[in-house]
């Protein structure tokens, strides 16, 4: 049973206005000056970032790869397309390592006729390092021979290729770094395009919401539902395999992820009080989007971008494998990997270096993106 309020009820007698008094009415407002220096958002992030050792290492690694991608191709006298039919498929040789057994320019040749090993027209003087695995097949005595492949191929002693050479006798050191350059260009440009398109698209969809959002999201759903391989293949079939169309092929579906993320960010922030506050001040739509809502997405965008770069390199190598690689004789990590895969059984070292490079890049970018995420969003630290 609830009792109804009545002014005369003595129980409520003390509810007069005199009871509603602010007790601290006379307290004056006193605000002290801050002792600390003002720290901006980015500066704050930078400080946090610099405290993460892993991120710094990742950054240094990326910087080194970038530097090598710029200067690496010019570090020796070979151009990326300098061919030499006498230098085909040479193994890696680094003078300093000559005695160590690796990078010494040796290679094991299988199933050699033992009786032919003395033939200096086939095995030049001193090229045989080691013999093993004697066996008889079809009545012929065979063994595996480790040769100094440079001598075996008749290459002069002072010639060396640090990463070896490919099927056209091209220096793989130069091609790997050149490839890194092209792959990074493809990755950066496509990721920047993806981010930009996704950002604009997602902002509009997220900000205006309603039926605009519905239509825009439906469009992304359609694009996304199509099988990537078919779309990309048709795309490259149509536009050829130039640098630009490879980049566009990496954009055609990939911007959607960014768009969705940005849209979610907008949904989260567009009704937040400070955005409403700005609206009540008469801030226009475009300023609201760019100045008030978007900066909140900067952390996720950067993080996403950092992960997207290595996966663009990955996709590029996948395209190269199915025959949609960058136009020859240009090199890219993907092209090198897919060419390497074809001879993986015979010349594994041709796959080794591009595979190492893509792994290092992936690790570095992943670590960097973790570091950046922590820096921009301290709540996720340690994740």
């Amino acid at each position: 049973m609830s009792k109804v309020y009545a002014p005369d009820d003595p129980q409520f007698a003390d509810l007069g206005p005199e009871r509603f008094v602010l007790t601290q009415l006379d307290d004056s407002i006193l605000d002290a000056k801050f002792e600390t220096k003002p720290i901006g958002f980015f500066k704050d992030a930078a400080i946090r970032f610099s405290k993460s050792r892993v991120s710094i290492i990742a950054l240094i690694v990326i910087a080194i790869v970038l530097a090598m991608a710029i200067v690496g191709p010019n570090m020796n006298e070979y151009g990326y397309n300098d061919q030499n039919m006498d230098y085909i498929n040479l193994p890696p040789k680094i003078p300093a390592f000559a005695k160590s057994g690796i990078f010494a320019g040796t290679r094991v040749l299988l199933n050699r006729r033992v009786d032919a090993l003395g033939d200096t027209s086939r095995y030049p003087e001193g090229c045989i390092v080691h013999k093993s695995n004697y066996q008889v097949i079809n009545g012929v005595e065979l063994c595996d021979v480790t040769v100094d492949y440079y001598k075996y191929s008749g290459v002069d002693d002072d010639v060396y290729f640090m990463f070896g050479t490919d099927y056209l006798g091209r220096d793989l050191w130069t091609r790997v770094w050149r490839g890194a350059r092209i792959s990074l260009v493809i990755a950066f440009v496509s990721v920047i395009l993806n981010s930009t398109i996704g950002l604009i698209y997602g902002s509009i969809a997220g900000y205006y919401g309603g039926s605009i959002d519905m239509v825009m999201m439906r469009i992304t759903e359609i694009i996304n539902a199509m099988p990537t391989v078919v779309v990309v293949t048709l795309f490259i079939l149509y536009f050829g395999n130039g640098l630009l169309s490879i980049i566009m092929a990496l954009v055609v579906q990939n911007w959607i992820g960014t768009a969705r993320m940005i849209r979610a960010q907008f949904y989260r922030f567009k009704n937040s009080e400070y955005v409403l506050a700005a609206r009540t001040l008469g801030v226009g739509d475009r300023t609201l989007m760019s100045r008030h809502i978007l900066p909140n997405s900067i952390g996720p965008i950067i993080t996403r971008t950092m992960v997207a770069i290595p996966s663009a390199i990955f996709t590029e190598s996948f395209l190269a494998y199915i025959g949609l690689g960058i136009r020859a004789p240009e090199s890219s990590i993907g092209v090198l990997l897919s060419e390497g895969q074809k001879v993986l059984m015979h010349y594994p070292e041709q796959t080794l270096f591009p595979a190492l490079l893509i792994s290092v890049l992936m690790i570095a970018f992943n670590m960097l993106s973790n570091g950046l995420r922590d820096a921009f969003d301290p709540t996720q630290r340690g994740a």
Partner: protein
Amino acid sequence: MRKRPLLAIVLLIACALSACGTPAVEPDPDPGSDKPEVYGTLYNYVGTVSTLNPFESSETAGTTIIEACTIGLYEYFPNKTGDGFVFEGQLAIGDPVAKNDEGTLWEIKIHDNAKWENGDPITVDDVIYSLKQVMDPLLLTRRASQVASEYITIKGAVDYCQQGNSNSVPWETVGLKKIDDYTLQVETESFATVNDVKTQFSTKYTHLVHEPTWEACFSADRTSNTYGTITGGWMSCGPFILTDWTEGSQFVFERNPDYIRADDISLEKMVFYVITDSNTALEMFLAGNIDTVSLGAAAIEQYEDDPRLHPSRPGSVTSICVNIGNTKNNNALGNKNFRKALFYATDREAIAKLVKGVPATWIVASAIISSVDTGVFFRDLPEAQAYLPPNNGYDPDLARQYFQTALDELGIDKAEVTMIYSESSSTTKAVSEFLHKTWPEVLGPQFEFKIEGVASSLASSLRKSWTAENPNTYELAWGGWSVSLTDVANGFKVYTGWFNNKNEPHYNDWYDDLWEKANQSERGKTDNDYRLDLCFEMEEYLIDEALTIPIYETPGRRLINDRIKLPLDDYKPAFGWGWMYAKVVD
């Protein structure tokens, strides 16, 4: 009337991917004697085979499979001495017999004891039914035109298969008649030799299909048929019976005891795996899972000493097709001197190193024999070498000279040319990259050369979509004709003016006339020396005009497990390795 192409044409890429040899057959036509005792299973691999329908199959690998389990009238078989082959009846008994003096009416006798795998007897009705189906005007099979007219032109057949749905040409007008259950009469449009008739009825697309099964596979409107596909039925009648087929994965064959020449078959079973990745195939071989593997350029180095390595002569020349009608490049490609400049600017020896092949400056591939009777290779004839350019056709100074002349003639100071190549072929890609580097070095800054990798489908459709109205589909492209290994003269058809399937838009009445003389005149058909002379003339002309730029040949290189005893001591053109006739000695 348009003439039919005479030769099976397969793209170079298809050749490169093809895994296996051709059919083969028995050394001993006399049944009953010399019963083979060795039975065993041969493990082999093939590329993709998506249909066994002999009238539609276009994959090289399909030939191997179809010929193992179907039967045709004539076939190549290994000879008894193991050094060559014989060309005789498979279903047919003896050679076709001419019934008139003009050489246009022929009779072929067939065996009366041949059976389908279900026991149905094979009669002339089956032969005629199969030929009727392949030429069905509504079914429009891929091979219709070749059956109607290739080595011989069957009377009325072209009109029959090309009538569309007009229903104006009845089957009765076609020159294929049943005399009795085991005698077939063939009437041709013009003079033919015994060999022509035999060759015509030896191709896989004249092999037999089983009528009730075929009928059951028709679509409701009878415009398509699923015989020999994933869903359709199949009936074997060849040396082997197809007992198990998982499309895209494996074929299992068992010896057919009812096969007419069953005594020639020593194998109990054959298993073909479908493998398209070369690394996988090599691993399968080294692990002992398959008995043979073909080696690509990268793999050869490690196995060059291996006693299991069996080389074979190359069956086609990898060349650059020149689109002489292309107008985009100031008609540079239409200029003979320009083409010759490209010809002489090519360092074929370096390329041969690159692809582990042989430099080629010729048109007729090394595996092609000049005459079935002698078995001498055309390339080995001294006359066929007389007109070949020295130094494998590499002469930078000459090339520059031709190039300068061409520029002067064309009145231009710069020539720009683009070559397309297929991304899926690593060898042509490598050679394209090599040429991209070396041609401009030889010809100088006035020559600009671009290469463009395209998907293989696009490469072939660009090449084929060349027409007089649409001349600019390509400038230079990779090509290579895989033609009959037993008939040189016929192979030149691909460069004749009326050969429509060609990649090179070349027309020359004089040349066409040479070809007709060699192939269709009575003298050409009967006088081998005369025919060869015409061949030299044609080849010299083609090289001189540089209508196509031959670059290299790649010999076949195959590791064959020593437990396999092949019927011949080596690969034989037109016959292949003869897997079907091999023996397994464990």
